[in-house]
């Protein structure tokens, strides 16, 4: 029984080397994203409300910087160009595997499902790539990532076909790889 990240009582926070200086471009991008989100959700152009919005955005960005959350992992700017393609392919995979799970639900035979655990390896090297892959696997119905240890995933699969898809690394090939951590 191996567990990778420590259980909650022992785990204060994941220790990461603190960067020498907080990255500015991620801060700017986060500010713009939050401002856009606020504008979409509010939609009122009164000056007072706009001031409230600016204040809340500034407070949130300050909090995020204080918590050391603003970096290439929370805000993968270097993936921006490849993300739409990845999402489109991921949505297609999700739709296909949804149909498989629905077929398994509707099938009257009891052996239509074969729930089991598989272990598989990933070719992702960065923490961001591994996390994205694990989340993509979980988001796809029929497979759930239970644990992630170094480069080994513990995945629960509903059917043999879905397990085979994970072992063959279909999603793994879709995730944009970054071979090394980008320079800050």
């Amino acid at each position, binding site marked *: *029984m191996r*567990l990778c990240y420590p*259980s*909650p*009582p022992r785990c204060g926070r994941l220790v990461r080397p603190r960067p020498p200086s907080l990255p500015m471009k991620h801060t700017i991008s986060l500010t713009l994203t939050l401002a856009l989100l606020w504008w979409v*959700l509010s939609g009122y152009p009164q000056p007072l409300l706009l001031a409230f919005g600016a204040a809340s955005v500034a407070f949130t960005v300050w909090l995020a910087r204080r918590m050391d959350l603003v970096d290439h992992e929370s805000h993968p700017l270097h993936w921006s160009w490849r993300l739409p393609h990845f999402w489109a392919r991921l949505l297609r995979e999700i739709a296909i595997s949804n149909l498989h799970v629905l077929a398994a639900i509707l099938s009257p035979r009891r052996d239509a499902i074969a729930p089991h655990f598989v272990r598989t390896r990933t070719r992702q090297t960065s923490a961001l790539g591994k996390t994205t892959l694990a989340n993509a696997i979980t988001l796809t119905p029929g497979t759930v990532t239970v644990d992630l240890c170094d480069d080994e995933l513990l995945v629960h699969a509903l059917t043999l076909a879905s397990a085979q898809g994970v072992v063959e690394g279909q999603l793994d090939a879709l995730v944009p790889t970054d071979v090394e951590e980008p320079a800050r």
Partner: protein
Amino acid sequence: MSGALVTCGVAVLVAMGLALARALLGPSVYDRILAVNSFGTKTVLLIALLGAVAGRADYFDVALLYALINFVSTVAMMRYCESAEASTAPEPGTGGSEPGESAEPSP
């Protein structure tokens, strides 16, 4: 058009009832939390549907907030269960081959 919306609302309510049945049946605490999480997602959809019936987009803000609260509550409950398990269970993985009531956190 509103007839179709009402039919969809009934379908969502029935689906919520199915999730609630799973929450009542259990058997493990994780089944219940899974069912409640699923119930919450369906509630989000129902609130959005109400917004469409009323023809007002204000309901969507409520639905958005409900989605976030649903997520936070599920994760918080999982953290609570995990820490309760870790402090009482002797060694995870050694026992508990049966999926039944053994998964309940002992008080």
